């Protein structure tokens, strides 16, 4: 199963590198949304709370552009049936999850670099806290996005539905990471955010565990 998982993730990676659709969409989304924020702000100084909120808003909505496509692509190309035949459903789930994790981490890195350039107030004062937040946040984000994307792939009106379905699921994660990111920008101690990390860790375990159990019901017709 582990071999199959990696095979599916590398298949997605290779087909992504051929077209670069998702990566381009993600990066352009990050650039355009940051540009919009800059248009609105002009010379205003913004607080770290606002910045960390904006940062995750960009990540959340960029996720709609890229992460939600992961199963829709299979249905549109008509390859979902083949995938159902050749791989076990848990391998499909974990392969897609792995690929979505990669995408999210890339997205978060791009957003971080762009924020560092664009906003003089965006200074990471405690790097370890920021790195841990962003890493755990990406994993949780990818975990929720994968299972929602699998549901959305079966429905009509796929684009808008993803945002509607994912927000209530992602809200506990978003609230926690926004708070922790603001703490990292303000230079708080790593140990001050241990409670938040427990929430993030619990969230990731709960979502991945349940998705693993329920994925069969979504994937198999």
């Amino acid at each position, binding site marked *: 199963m582990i071999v199959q998982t990696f095979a599916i993730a590398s298949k997605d990676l290779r087909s992504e590198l051929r077209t670069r659709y998702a990566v381009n969409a993600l990066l352009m989304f990050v650039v355009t949304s940051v540009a919009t924020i800059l248009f609105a702000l002009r010379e205003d100084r913004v607080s770290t709370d606002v910045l960390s909120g904006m940062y995750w808003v960009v990540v959340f909505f960029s996720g709609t552009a890229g992460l939600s496509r992961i199963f829709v692509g299979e249905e549109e190309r008509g390859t979902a049936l083949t995938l159902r035949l050749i791989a076990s459903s848990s391998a499909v789930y974990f392969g897609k999850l792995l690929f979505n994790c990669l995408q999210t981490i890339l997205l978060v890195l791009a957003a971080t670099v762009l924020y560092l350039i664009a906003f003089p107030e965006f200074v990471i004062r405690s790097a370890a806290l920021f790195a841990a937040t962003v890493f755990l946040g990406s994993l949780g984000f990818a975990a*929720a996005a994968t*299972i*929602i994307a699998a*549901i959305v792939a*079966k*429905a*009509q*009106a796929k684009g808008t*539905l993803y945002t*509607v*379905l994912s*927000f*209530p*699921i992602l*809200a*506990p994660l978003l*609230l926690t990471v926004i*708070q922790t990111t603001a703490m990292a920008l303000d230079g708080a101690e790593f140990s001050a955010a241990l*409670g*938040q990390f427990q*929430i993030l860790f*619990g*969230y990731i375990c*709960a*979502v991945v565990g*349940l*998705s693993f159990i*329920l994925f069969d*019901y*979504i994937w198999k017709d």
Partner: protein
Amino acid sequence: MKIVKLLSIVLISFVLCAGIAVPMVPQPHGFFQFPIIPGLENKARNIFFHVPLAWTAVLAFLVALWHGFRYLRTQDIMHDHQSVASAGLGLMFCLLATITGSIWAKFNWGSFWNWDPRETSIFILLLIYGAYFALRSALASEEIRARLSAVYSMIAGVTAPFFVFVMPRLFAGLHPGARGDEAGSTPVAQLHMTGPMRIVFFSGLLGFSLLFFWLLNLRVRVARLEEQHSINLQP
């Protein structure tokens, strides 16, 4: 069901009368006086309505979740009817709880809405109900609709407790039971109620729960009749 119906009507009428009419005095004597809770005064009467409504909204979600789970196990479409009927009622109770809470917040905290952790959590519960119905309307086939909405409600069911049980205790809030409340932070707000107040409060809980089960029963019966009717229409 007739007993449920009658009992819910009796209990809710009792709560309406007692909750509004019984006076609140500093030193309560006897059965027909409530104590004054410091910081709440007469606004405490909302406990008898807001808390049972919020409780019923959560109960409806759990019933929808349970029938979603049963549907996945048995593939019996009746469980899906139960699930969607329960979710629809839950949405109604959730809206009522939000409105009563919001009006209370205006008089107690000064504004209708101020993103207290509890307000955030009930807002997310509303969004979950909204998303559940948005998903159902986007799925054409009855079987896939039943299956995927069951899966979605279960995923929402594991992430929502993070709001209800974790957040209010981690982030300081204004709601009774949040961190910083001198009465202590617990999942259920510790309100210092006396015996008569408890009787009214628990009558409210039971009354609104029974009302929910009665309405649920009605909706499921309607769904069953509609299904039989549509089968009969087919040649």
